[in-house]
C-alpha cells in the first residue's frame, strides 16, 4: 500500500463533497457557512497532492502556494459571513429555497 496522487485526490474529493454536504444539509445560512472551510481543506489537499506527486520541475511548490491561497480565502469568507449576520435581536431568516418562496407566495 502506497500513497499515490489518485489516493490523495480521492481523499480531497471526499472532503470537498463533505463541505458541499454541510452547506446543503444545514438550512440556516450561518450554519451552512461551516461547509466552506471543509471544502477548502479538500481543495488545498488536492493542490498539495499535485505539488507532491505531479509537479513540474519549473515550479515544484506552486501547488502548496495555491493551497495557502485557498485556505486564506476560506478564512476571509468565514469572517465576512459572520460579520454580515443579522444582529442578535433580529429574527434569523432561513435559507431562501424554492420551497420557502412557494410557501410565501401561497400565504400572500
Amino acid at each position: 500500500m502506497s500513497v499515490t496522487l489518485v489516493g490523495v485526490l480521492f481523499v480531497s474529493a471526499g472532503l470537498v463533497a463533505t463541505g458541499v454536504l454541510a452547506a446543503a444539509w444545514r438550512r440556516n445560512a450561518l450554519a451552512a457557512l461551516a461547509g466552506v472551510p471543509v471544502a477548502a481543506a479538500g481543495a488545498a489537499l488536492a493542490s498539495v497532492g499535485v505539488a507532491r506527486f505531479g509537479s513540474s520541475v519549473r515550479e515544484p511548490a506552486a501547488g502548496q502556494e495555491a493551497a495557502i491561497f485557498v485556505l486564506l480565502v476560506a478564512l476571509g469568507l468565514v469572517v465576512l459571513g459572520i460579520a454580515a449576520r443579522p444582529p442578535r435581536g433580529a429574527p434569523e431568516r432561513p435559507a431562501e429555497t424554492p420551497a420557502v418562496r412557494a410557501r410565501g407566495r401561497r400565504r400572500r
Partner: protein
Amino acid sequence: MDVLTSVLFYALAALALIGGLGVAVLPTGSPRALSFLLLAAGAAGTYAVLDAGFVAALALLVLVACGLLLAPLPARETSEPRGGPWQQVGALAAAGLFALLAYAAYRGGLFEGTYASGDFGIFNAAAMGSLLLGRDALATEAAGALLLLALVGGGARWAGWAARTRRPR
C-alpha cells in the same frame, strides 16, 4: 513512500473525513467544535505527510480559527427550520459530486512529476516566501486585502455589539 507513512496518511485522512462529516451533521456546540478539531488535526497531518509543513501549520491555524468562530453558531435557541426534499436533493448532489471527482481522479490522465522535497525541507517557508512575496505578490496582496476587510467588518460588528450592550453609568 514507505508503508508506515502510507498508513499514517490514510489514518489522518480518515480522521479529517470523520471531522468533516461531524461538521456537516452534528449539532452546534461541543460536538461541532470537536469535529472541527478532528478536521484540523487530520488535514494538517495529511499536509505534513505530503512534505508541506508550512501549509500544515497554516491549515491548523485557519481550521482551528474557523472552528472557534463557527462551532457555537447559530445559538441553540435559534432552531433550524426543518429540511424538506431540497435537503435530500442537496445531499444527493454532494454524493454525485464526490462520484464525479472520484471518477476524474481515477480515470484522469495524471502524470508523475518530480518533486525534490529535500531541496526545500518539510517546513519549506523559504520557498513559500519567495513564491508568495516574489512571483505572486499581487495575489498575496489580494488575499491580504480580503482578510483585512473581513477583520475590519468583524471589528466594526463587535464594536457595535459592545456599544449596544454597554451599561449606563
